[in-house]
């Protein structure tokens, strides 16, 4: 893999376009929190992670877990782009019997590592994976995406203690700080801030980045590789719905529908 910055930026747009196609017109879909992750997921799948779409269970692969499982569409888009399955599958997302379920399902979808969606559990799963890989002396890394709304779940902090207690330095979490939860602004609805101070207090190495700046994402992900004896978390400053002006910072698109007009506008914008 190892794409360049312009290629990765283009890939992020391709992921967004695929997400729009998956949501379609008049159907609900988690657009906002998928769009906020487009650059991060693009860099992980097409630059950073070791993985093999032709061999999803390759033992030396890095692992990607979406603890905020409702953003499944962005991962489906990346898996399809990477060649884990036919791009045709994305048209069937959430159809009865489809490979692509509403939330990630490792039994139906090649490339999905765990079942997530009940929020707060993915980080614990990622910790267990990291511990298991280390037990076998493997060098694989585990990447786990958590949401800034999701971290209201107490289990996140149980996992946070576990990761630092067991010094899981093969685990990197990315916190998608898009500042909105389903019903409004996190600061107003249920403030999970301050973030950096909390994670530092739980024993994590904490750094921050612009979650839409591909160059910066690449650098930060590379830099944390060398941090030893601590789990790492990257607080990614993002915009929910990023890339579609009508959806940006708009809570209606947490799990919203697109009109025909919005759909066409989105396709045109993302293809340009």
């Amino acid at each position, binding site marked *: 893999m190892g794409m360049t910055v312009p290629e990765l930026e283009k890939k992020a747009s391709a992921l967004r376009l695929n997400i729009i196609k998956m949501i379609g017109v008049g159907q609900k879909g988690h657009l906002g929190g998928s769009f906020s992750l487009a650059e991060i997921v693009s860099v992980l799948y097409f630059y950073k992670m070791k993985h093999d779409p032709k061999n999803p269970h390759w033992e030396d692969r890095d692992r990607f877990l979406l603890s905020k499982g409702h953003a499944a569409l962005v991962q489906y888009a990346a898996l399809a782009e990477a060649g884990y399955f036919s791009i045709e599958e994305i048209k069937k997302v959430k159809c009865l019997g489809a490979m692509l379920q509403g939330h990630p399902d490792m039994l139906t979808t090649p490339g999905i590592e765990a079942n997530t969606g009940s929020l707060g559990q993915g980080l614990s799963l990622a910790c267990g994976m990291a511990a*298991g890989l280390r037990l076998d002396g493997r060098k694989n890394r585990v990447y786990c995406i958590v949401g800034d709304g999701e971290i209201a779940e107490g289990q996140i902090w149980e*996992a946070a203690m576990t990761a630092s207690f067991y010094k899981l330095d093969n685990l990197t979490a990315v916190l998608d700080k898009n500042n909105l939860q389903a019903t409004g602004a996190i600061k107003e609805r249920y403030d999970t801030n301050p973030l950096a101070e909390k994670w530092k207090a739980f024993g994590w190495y904490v750094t921050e980045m612009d979650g839409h700046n591909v160059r910066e994402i690449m650098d930060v992900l590379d830099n944390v590789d060398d941090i030893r004896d601590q789990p790492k978390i990257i607080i990614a400053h993002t915009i929910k719905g990023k890339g579609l002006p009508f959806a940006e910072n708009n809570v209606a698109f947490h799990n919203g529908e697109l009109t025909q007009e919005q759909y066409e506008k989105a396709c045109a914008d993302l293809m340009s």
Partner: protein
Amino acid sequence: MQNPRQVYGETLLELGRKNTNIVVLEADLSKSTMTCLFEKEFPERFFEMGIGEANMTSFAGGLSLTGKVAFTNSFAVFAAGRSYDQIRQGVSIPKLNVKIVGSSAGLSDFGDGATHQSVEDVAIMRAIPNMTVLVPVDGIETRKMTQKIAEYHGPAYMRVNRQDLPDLFPIDQEYVIGKSYLIHEGHDVAIFACGVMVSKAVQAAERLKTEGISVRVVNVSSLKPTNEDDIKKFASGVKGVVTAEEHSLIGGLASVITYILRGSGTPIVPIGIEDEFGQSAHDYEELLADYKLTVENIISSVKKLFY
């Protein structure tokens, strides 16, 4: 007499010696669940997860995704209750290889009261698709069951009594998940029992024999799956059936047997805990008696089938 917790701890250690993929997770009860035996010999494969059952369960799921056979341990009330959603979502939906061992189950932690006594753990676990639910009758079966669930790929829940139990499972009998086992021959009435209630059923059968009533006692240790043919076979040719369990009458053995025998016309008298919680007592037997989980109640229930 053997203590099932002790046997479980020793079996886990034996399994750990044979299979380096066995990992054990604990929520600060290792001296009670007896996983301390495993910890002592294999500290690197033992994960103390602190007093956090939810995280322990999902963490075990993560370990299983790297090829480990993960045993999580806590009291049954917490194993099933505090981790329900983690078991459901992250473990059972994808059929992960996680074994949930609920220790000090039922009323067997007699002193600690309602908060620590599990009257509904079997019901909760049975309701989860893909879950196997097992209740060993004694130390012998605990050992065989532990070995079997370690071999079986998928989620399983095993409910372990805190107190010593008399040996009833034939030592040479192979244990198979799903099967029910005849413990005492008889032809007038069949008692389907599990856990501590099997030994009480056997005592009841022996006393009834002196009164000329012949009672068959069956150990239904696999509450999911339960081989329906076994139950129908053991229920055939009798006047009726008694079920006996140290668990709520909702969702446990009584539910299993009445469901399997539906439409057969077989009279069934269920013995179990009514829709209520446990409470503290100074003695296990005293507590069981308060919930009518006694030899005497089994005897009178059998006799009801004759009138």
